[in-house]
């Protein structure tokens, strides 16, 4: 299944904020986690995660620090701020509303039942 660009873009911020809510992390690890969480369905271009992280840093949702883990390379770590936590809660509320609405549509609408036989065929 291919998830469209718009959906990927829309879900990027809450995903990153949510992953950082579990504790500090860095770009590559965040991508790996997105990959695992979505079972490989959400395809991000690796590089494009970074401009997003920088935007979140600029508006103050995350803080960044450079650190060198023992025996490792210098690496930029990102951590959620209080403001970022509030933003995450807000995003969760919004997404919950969207998901609820969609669920309502899936259950009430007859016309988009998956693989329903066309009426004229059913009549034969």
């Amino acid at each position, binding site marked *: 299944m291919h998830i469209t660009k718009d959906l990927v873009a829309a879900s990027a911020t809450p995903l990153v904020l949510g992953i950082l809510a579990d504790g500090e992390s*860095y*770009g*590559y690890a965040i991508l790996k986690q997105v990959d695992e969480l979505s079972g490989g369905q959400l395809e991000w*271009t*690796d*590089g*494009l995660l*970074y*401009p997003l992280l*920088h*935007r979140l*840093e*600029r*508006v*103050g949702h995350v803080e*960044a620090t*450079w650190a060198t883990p023992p025996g490792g*390379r*210098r*690496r*930029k770590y990102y951590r959620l701020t209080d*403001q970022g936590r509030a933003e995450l809660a807000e995003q969760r509320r919004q997404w919950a509303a969207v998901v609820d609405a969609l669920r309502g549509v899936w259950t009430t609408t007859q016309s988009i039942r998956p693989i329903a036989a066309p009426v004229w065929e059913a009549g034969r």
Partner: protein
Amino acid sequence: MTLASDNELEIQIAEWRAYMRRRRELHQADTEELEDHLRTRITELTEAGLRADEAFLIAVKRMGSLDELSREFAREHSERLWKQLVLPGEPNAAAARSRRELVAMMLCAAVAAIAIKVPSLFGLDLSGDNSGFYARNLSLFALPALAAYFLWQRRAGRRVIGVLTLLFVVGAIGANAYPLAGDSQSVVLTAIHLPLALWLVVGVAYAGGEWRSGRRRMDFIRFSGEWLIYFVLIALGGGALSAITINTFLAIGLDAEGFVQSWLVPCGAMAAVVVSAWLVEAKQSVVENMAPVLTRVFTPLFAAALLAFLVAMIWTNNGVDVERDALILFDLLLVIVLGLLLYAISARDPAARPGLFDRLQLALVVTALIIDVFVLLAITGRITEWGFSPNKTAALGENIILLANLAWSAWLFLRFVRGRIPFARLENWQTRYVIVYAAWAWTVVLAFPPVFGFA
């Protein structure tokens, strides 16, 4: 992994790094961050059994195309290359584009230069009798041409073009439809405020219609500062040219003064409006951004001067002498402080931590605020005596608008210096406030004359 393949991999990564470095929108820290990502990906792939060169290719591919990456970085960090809003293309295409831009710029400059001579055809020549007409309409000659240049360059949509045309027409009507006497205060107010209102209309064209975007607005603020500097430089050159022309012709017994005054200066000034804008856009990489440099130099000096003034005022217990022009003087002071603040903000790396310069900036703003409160107190006590004339109302309104901006800026600045909020909030406040200036300028142009009985 063998030593040889390891070595080869290092060479490939070094080449990749050099390639990234050539992009101005990527800073060293970003390249390092991306390189760390690349190396982690390569390690993982080689551990899964791929050869080093294969792993490198896949890792680079997954990073995404460099153009796309640069574009995203440019969008996020527009302060790094705000002048190149047209994003990366082929070098040849860039050359062709800049040639086309040069032609379009010259066309627009020519239109601006001719426009100011058009009223002469209808008997309104550039002499003392018509100074009122030219004062009111000065901005209507060059700014439409400038807006047209940006609309062309940004390939703006029809709706944007339509709305901007409408705004210019409204401006023209506001400047000319009211029955104002040549020496009335409203003429002066229109002459000051219409250019401001229309300059912000040019801003919409500059942003290619994306005027709601805070980043584009900040880009336009940066542009305005650089434009002013180029314009002043051109004006200095133009002044020298005029003086030399007049005097050399005088030396051979010919009088060139008429030509200089009615052709060279007005047409040159109008064309310079467009040329300066083009220079800012095209030649940005040649010259270091000037406005932030001047800001750095003058912020400490202004802070010291204002502090000295405040101390002297309190020490000697001399109240501010509330003369007619005091309000305007202090309006100018606030404008300068605001300018210093804006250009410090526009050039600042939003992610940097608060430093000494930020504290200095805060001190400057707070000092200016305190001084202005004294002035306002002194003036409100007496404004009832004078009554409200257009001039005083405009000066007072401006003072209050600037005061409100600076007071809230100071509050945000204080919280930023203490590490409570990110710098972006301050930037946001300034870019959002632009709309207030636009509203005020249009109010003065359109509503003041009827409200004050065309005084």
